[in-house]
C-alpha cells in the first residue's frame, strides 16, 4: 500500500516530518482482536497541515496517540508498521529518521512534549485539576529545558539546583532549596521558569498571564483552558503538533478564535500539524491535505480542494451529504444507513460494504487498495482496474458519476 504522491506546488516538495507506513494498532477484546488501525500510511511534510477525518471509532485518535506511544498496551498491540520521524535537528545534520514505535522509552520521553506535542479534545480532562496553571505549564520546561533553566557553566551550579531544574529533587532537598545557602539560587530558578511560562501563555493571547498562573483549571473558561493546553503544547516549539479535536468541547464563537490562534502560531513557528476532527467543514478550513478514515483504513486522501470538490469514495460523498446545509430539505438528508462496524478479526473486504449503496459481491471479497485517481488517492473497487484484479469488468461496482 503506497501513499499517493502529493502534488501541491509549495508544500509538496518540503521535507518530510513524519512518514507513517502501514501502521497497525490492534486491541485485544473479548470477541477476538479488534483491528482499530489496520494498515494506515500517510506523510506529513514540513509546515503543512494534514487533516484526519472520520467518525467515532474509525481509528483516527488511536493513530494519533500511537505517534507518542500513548496507546495502552495491553490491551493495545502495535501489530506492525513504522512511524518515521525527522526532527528539525536530525534533518539538518542529515541523520536517519527514528521509528517512533521502536525507540526506547527514554528517547520517547525526550520527544514527547518537546519535538511532538499534542492538544487533547477535552481541556477540562487533560489538565490536572489539583495543579495550578503555572505549575502545569512549568513541567514542560522542567522536563525538556532544564539545561537552559540553570544557565552558567556546569561547575558553578550546585547539583541540587541542577536536580531541581529537572524536578528530580527529594522532599528534604526541596526544603533545603528554601533555606540558605541555596535559597537565592532556588528563587532564581523559579523566576526563570515563571518567565518562560508567562511567555508561553502570552503567546496564546492570554491576558494577565502572571495572574492566570496562580489559578486552577476549574477557575478558567473552556476557551481559556484550551489556550493553556496550546501554550503547554507549543512551549518547546515542536516540529509536529497533533491536535485531537481541539475545539469539539467549545462553542462556535470560541472555536473560531482557537482555530485562528492555532493557524497563526503554526505559521509563525513553521510547525507541522496533524489535525484530527470529525467535522468536515473545519478540516476544509484548516488543512492543506486531508485523509478520510473509515474503520481503521484511509479510504480517501488528497489535497483539501480536490477531496472536497470532487470526492470519489462513496463514504466521503455520504459524509458530505449528511451534513445539514442550507440547500437541503427537512427529512431529506442523505443519511448513511447503519453503523460503523467493529473490526474484530476482519476478513479481506471493503470495510464500507455494509453501508455502501453501490456495494456488489466483489466488495465483500476483495480488500481495495489506495489508488491514485484524479490527483487523489481512493480505496474503492469502482476505480480499480478489472484486469489487474483478474476479474471481469462487469463484476466491479459502479459508483455514480464515475467513468473508468
Amino acid at each position, binding site marked *: 500500500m503506497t501513499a499517493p504522491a502529493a502534488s501541491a506546488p509549495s508544500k509538496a516538495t518540503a521535507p518530510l516530518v513524519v512518514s507513517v507506513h502501514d501502521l497497525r494498532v490492534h486491541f485485544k477484546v473479548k470477541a477476538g482482536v479488534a483491528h482499530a488501525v489496520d494498515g494506515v500510511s500517510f506523510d506529513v511534510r514540513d509546515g503543512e497541515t494534514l487533516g484526519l477525518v472520520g467518525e467515532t471509532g474509525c481509528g483516527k485518535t488511536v493513530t494519533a496517540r500511537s505517534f507518542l506511544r500513548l496507546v495502552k498496551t495491553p490491551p493495545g498491540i502495535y501489530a506492525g508498521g513504522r512511524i518515521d520521524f525527522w526532527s528539525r535537528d536530525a534533518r539538518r545534520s542529515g541523520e536517519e529518521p527514528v521509528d517512533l514505535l521502536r525507540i526506547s522509552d527514554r528517547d520517547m520521553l525526550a520527544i514527547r512534549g518537546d519535538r511532538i506535542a499534542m492538544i487533547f479534545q477535552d481541556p477540562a480532562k487533560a489538565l490536572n485539576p489539583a495543579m495550578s496553571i503555572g505549575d502545569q505549564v512549568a513541567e514542560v520546561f522542567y522536563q525538556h529545558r532544564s539545561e537552559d533553566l540553570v544557565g552558567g557553566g556546569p561547575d558553578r551550579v550546585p547539583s541540587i539546583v541542577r536536580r531541581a531544574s529537572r524536578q528530580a529533587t527529594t522532599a528534604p532537598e526541596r526544603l533545603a532549596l528554601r533555606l540558605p545557602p541555596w535559597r537565592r539560587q532556588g528563587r532564581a530558578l523559579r523566576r526563570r521558569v515563571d518567565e518562560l511560562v508567562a511567555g508561553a501563555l502570552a503567546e496564546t493571547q492570554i491576558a494577565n498571564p502572571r495572574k492566570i498562573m496562580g489559578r486552577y483549571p476549574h477557575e478558567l473558561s473552556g476557551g481559556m483552558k484550551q489556550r493553556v493546553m496550546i501554550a503547554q503544547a507549543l512551549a518547546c516549539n515542536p516540529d509536529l503538533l497533533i491536535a485531537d479535536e481541539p475545539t469539539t468541547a467549545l462553542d462556535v464563537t470560541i472555536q473560531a478564535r482557537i482555530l485562528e490562534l492555532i493557524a497563526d502560531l503554526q505559521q509563525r513557528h513553521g510547525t507541522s500539524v496533524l489535525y484530527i476532527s470529525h467535522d468536515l467543514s473545519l478540516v476544509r478550513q484548516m488543512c492543506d491535505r486531508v485523509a478520510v478514515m473509515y474503520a481503521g483504513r484511509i479510504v480517501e486522501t488528497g489535497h483539501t480542494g480536490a477531496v472536497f470538490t470532487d470526492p470519489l469514495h462513496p463514504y466521503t460523498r455520504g459524509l458530505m451529504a449528511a451534513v445539514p446545509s442550507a*440547500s437541503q430539505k427537512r427529512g431529506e438528508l442523505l443519511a448513511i444507513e447503519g453503523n460503523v462496524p467493529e473490526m474484530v478479526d476482519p476478513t479481506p473486504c471493503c470495510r464500507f460494504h455494509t453501508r455502501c449503496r453501490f456495494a456488489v459481491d466483489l466488495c465483500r471479497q476483495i480488500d481495495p487498495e489506495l489508488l491514485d485517481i484524479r490527483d487523489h488517492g481512493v480505496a474503492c473497487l469502482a476505480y480499480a482496474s478489472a484486469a489487474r484484479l483478474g476479474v471481469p469488468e462487469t463484476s466491479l461496482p459502479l459508483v455514480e458519476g464515475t467513468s473508468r
Partner: protein
Amino acid sequence: MTTLTPEATGSAGSVAGNLVMTLRGVEKHFPIKEGALQRVVGQVRAVDGISLDIRRGETVGLVGESGCGKTTLGRCVSGLSRPTAGGIYFRLSDRDQIALDEALAIPEDQRTNEQKQLMARIDAEHRLDTMSAAARRIYRRNCQVVFQDAFSSLNPRHLVKDIVGRPLRVFKEASGSELTERVVSLLESVGMGRQHLYRYPHQFSGGQRQRISIARALALDPDFIVLDEPTSALDVSVQAQILNLLHELQQQWGLTYLFISHDLGVVRLMSDRIGVMYLGRLVEQGTAEELFESARHPYTQALLAANPDLSADLDVEMRGLEGTVPDPANPPQGCRFHTRCPVAVPQCGWEVDDAVSWLSDMAGGLRGDVPHQLTAAFPDALTAVERRSDFDATLVFADEASAGLVGETLTGDGMPTSMAAALEGVSVEDHKVSIRFTEVDEVTLEDLGGGHLTSCILYTGRG
C-alpha cells in the same frame, strides 16, 4: 384513551391558532449559596424573562452558546424545573391568550375583578406550576423530553422493553402481552424491532440509544416533545438518520417540537421558527429563513459568521467573538451583548464594570502590542470600589499616582469610541477616580414586522 395509530394532521406549521405552549416572562434563577449557613449571596439568572408561543405542528428552534440558558428553559417548559417567575401555559385557547396578555400588561393591583377571575381560571387550568391535578395529568402525558445523552438518560439496569413500556405502565395504558405489542410497534416506528426488546442500553450504539429515547417519548402519543440537543453526541451520518426520523415522526404523529441545539445547521434544517438566546434572554426571533438570510442582531450575525459550513466561501475568514460570556449572576446593563459586540453604540448600556474590565485588559497588555504603563497601577493598586449604581462608581486606589494614571487612561483616546461617548464624566480626586456613565434602560424584543423580533437598538429605533 389514545391509540397508537398515528394521526395525520397535515403539514407542519400550517395550523394557525392552537397554542401548545405559551411562555410569558419566564425566569429561572439559581441561588448562589455561601458559607457554613448557606446564605444566599446572589442569583444566577439562567433564564431571565422569556416570552414565546409554540403552536401545534411547528418546530421552534432554540440556539445559543453553552450557558445561555437554553437547556434550563427546556427543563422549565417540560415541567422538570419550576420557573422562579413568569408563567408557562399549556394549551391556551387563542381568546384566553389575548385576554391573558391584556391582563399581564397592567400591574397586578390595577386589574379589574373580571381580569383577576380570568387569571385565576387560567392559572388553575393551564399554568404549569399551579394547574389542577387533572390538568397536570393531561399535560404530563402530552409533553415528553428527549435528552442529549441517551446513555445517561436510559437506566442501564432496565431492558428496552421496560424503558419504552414504563410510561404505558405508569399511565395504566397497557400490561402483559398488550404492553409488549405496544412496545414492539413503538420500536418499529423508530426503525428498530422485536429483536431489541430484551437487551440493555449498553448493547446499543449511540444512534440506536437515541432511537430508544425517542420511542419512549412517543409511548403516550404526546402533542409536544422537547428535544434537548438530540443529536449532538452523534456522528454526522447517524445524526442525519435521527433528524430524518424526527421529521418523519412529526409528519405522521402531528408532533410539535421545541428543538434545542447549539448547531446552527441542524436548527436551520429542523425549525420553522428560531429563537436565539444569549445570557438568559432571547435576542432575536424569527422564521428560520429570515434569521439566516437577514439576521439583524450582531450576536446572531456573529454566530453565523463563526459557524463552519461545507459550502462556505473559503476566502471569507471564520470570525469568532472577542472576550468571554459575562457572568450570568451579574449580567451587563442595557443590551447584554454590548461587552462583546463589534458594532456597539454609546446607547448600548456601558457601565462601570465595562470600564474596569477594559482597564484590566489594557494593563494585561491584551489590547495593545506593548504592555501598558498601567500594569504597575492596575489592578493591584485598586483597593476599593464605591458603587452608587451600575453606571456611577468611585474607584479607590492605594496612592495618588495610580489614580492619576487611571484617570488619564480613561480620558485618553485609547478607549473604544462608543464606550468613551457613553462616559459622562471622570474626575480624579486625591487617590479616588469617579466614573459616571449615561444610564440606559433594559432593551426589549421588538417586532420588525412579519414576526421577526430583535432586541438590538440599532433596529428597534432607540439607538
